[in-house]
């Protein structure tokens, strides 16, 4: 063991085998579920981002003569009860859905992590206080709570986002807190402290990477839940205001005219199903790829 000298190791000239930057993508694509999930998510994201580019008609343009039309080359998914092109409305509805999901989940993640780590790492009384708040908020049923808030504040996108942030943050915070609690008594945290690391450094660069993986998976799986909450509220007429399209309001229109045409319900329902599947598969496979504890030895 004394035969190795620093000269051997300085070895910048020796070829160093390092895994390529995008190796994780390959690993993800090798898994059929992951590839399928990624494909669906990419499809939804691209269609939502490029909604203005892809949609053949203005989603607000009425064409009453052609109302409740079946799919044709002119209207790929037919038209709704006011003769608006359903395909264009689905694309724009995706924009709303993703916007609500990403903004609210992102905010909940940041808030949940911060509060959870504070509760787990901070003093006991703060932990108890935060837990009390988390549990009280979690005790509300999401839809009832949303209905109550919307009744008071009035329906809008911001209200939906606010409600989702308030109801999902405690869940993330609890997971972050529990992981922090179990991690903070680990010897490596004591070792960090004995090497002179401060509290903020321990929390940000040592605890955070340990708890982020399960939370990101949870986020990925929560995105479809949030999308369905938004669709559900819009279905009830408590979400986005018309004429802004939402998958939920399209479903509601289809529900009202289901005796005339099934296409509105199909057009509103399929994106919801695909989004749920896509994000769930992606989250599942991303965990397998990213968690170094699950990584097989190469």
């Amino acid at each position, binding site marked *: *063991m*004394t035969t*190795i*000298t*620093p000269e*051997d*190791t*300085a*070895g*910048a000239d*020796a070829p*160093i*085998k*390092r*895994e390529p930057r995008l190796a994780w993508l390959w690993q993800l694509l090798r898994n059929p579920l992951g590839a399928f999930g990624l494909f669906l998510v990419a499809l939804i994201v691209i269609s939502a981002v490029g909604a203005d580019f892809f949609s053949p008609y203005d989603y607000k343009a009425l064409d009453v003569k052609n109302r409740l039309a079946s799919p044709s080359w002119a209207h790929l998914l037919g038209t709704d009860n006011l003769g608006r092109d359903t395909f264009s409305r689905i694309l724009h509805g995706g924009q709303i859905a993703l916007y609500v999901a990403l903004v609210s989940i992102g905010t909940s993640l940041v808030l949940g992590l911060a509060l959870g780590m504070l509760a787990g790492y901070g003093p006991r009384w703060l932990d108890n206080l935060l837990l009390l708040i988390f549990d009280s908020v979690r005790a509300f049923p999401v839809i009832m709570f949303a209905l109550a808030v919307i009744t008071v504040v009035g329906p809008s996108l911001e209200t939906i986002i606010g409600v989702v942030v308030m109801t999902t943050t405690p869940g993330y915070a609890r997971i972050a807190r529990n992981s922090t609690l179990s991690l903070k008594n*680990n*010897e*490596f945290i*004591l*070792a*960090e*402290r*004995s*090497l*002179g*690391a*401060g509290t903020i450094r321990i929390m940000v*660069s*040592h605890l955070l*990477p*340990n708890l982020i*993986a399960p939370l990101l998976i949870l986020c990925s799986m929560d995105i479809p839940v949030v999308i369905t909450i938004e669709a559900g509220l819009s279905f009830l007429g408590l979400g986005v205001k018309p004429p802004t399209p939402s998958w939920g309001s399209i479903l509601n229109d289809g529900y009202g005219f289901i005796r005339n045409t099934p296409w509105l319900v199909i057009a509103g329902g399929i994106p919801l199903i695909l989004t749920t599947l896509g994000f769930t598969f992606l989250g599942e496979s991303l965990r397998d790829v990213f*968690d*170094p*504890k699950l*990584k097989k*030895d190469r």
Partner: protein
Amino acid sequence: MNNTGNDHVLDVRDLSVSFNTSRGSLRALRHIDISVPQNKIVGIVGESGCGKSTLINSMLRLLAPNAEVDAQSEIIFQGDDVMKMGRSDLQGLRGERISMIFQDPMTALNPVISIGQQMSDILYRQDLNKAQKRARSAEMLAQVGIPDPMRRLDDYPHQFSGGMRQRICIAMALMMNPALLIADEPTTALDVTLEAQIIHLMKELREKFECSMLFVSHNLGLIAELCDEVIVMYAGEVVEQGNVHDLFHRAQHPYTQMLLECDPARIAETRRDLPTITGSVPDLVDLPTGCIFAPRCPKRYELCNESPPGTYEIGGQHSARCFKVRDD
């Protein structure tokens, strides 16, 4: 024993630590006086729960929040009193001037950060760029005998074996070239062949890096092999200390004598039962009035139960906390 000369890296004077528990104050350490000389290896032995870990944790002020250190306690490290240090001084002390190796290498490394990143993080105090930090980390890995260190920097802790992880921990502890290295039972979690390798490595590196070392163990053979001086602790007190030769060949305190007799490596003839010290460790919340070891001591007499003994010199650096020593 309380030599205050400059040849000591660390002087612990009259250190008492207690923990507030629901049953009352648990007096984990009582009036500890020890010192670590420059470039020497000092061993601490004692059974589980005797305060070894509390002692070394208090040296870095890493005690649990319910710990209370008595006001008269002093821990002088290179002329500075650790007990009076502020937050930034403590951060400068930990890892840079004193560093520590832990018992279980399986849990002492962050599982989700690569070794190279964890090692580079220690160098945050130094003004080096990323590549230089990596090179320095690889060099340290090579010093502790990790083959192909440059490539292994990107590996995660679970990709190393237990022995290798302990080597990495040693490399990390020595990275800032500390004046004192504290090893808290560094080989307890390893098997015997690895133990010998790690001990050999630590001895070699100690000479190379010229640091002093405090080695905590309950393995008497290791202590005899590695250390220059030995401190024997029992139930929160130092019962005997001296150089390794005096202590192993002329042990004076009954506890030390019995501890040596219990060492399986020293048993000459095969018997059905291993020798043990009868009785159990006293309750540290409700201390006996006399000598702490009296209830288990085969050589006790009335005085032992009445008042606690002081520390009595035997000769040279050798001393023991026992009335028998004074009387002899």
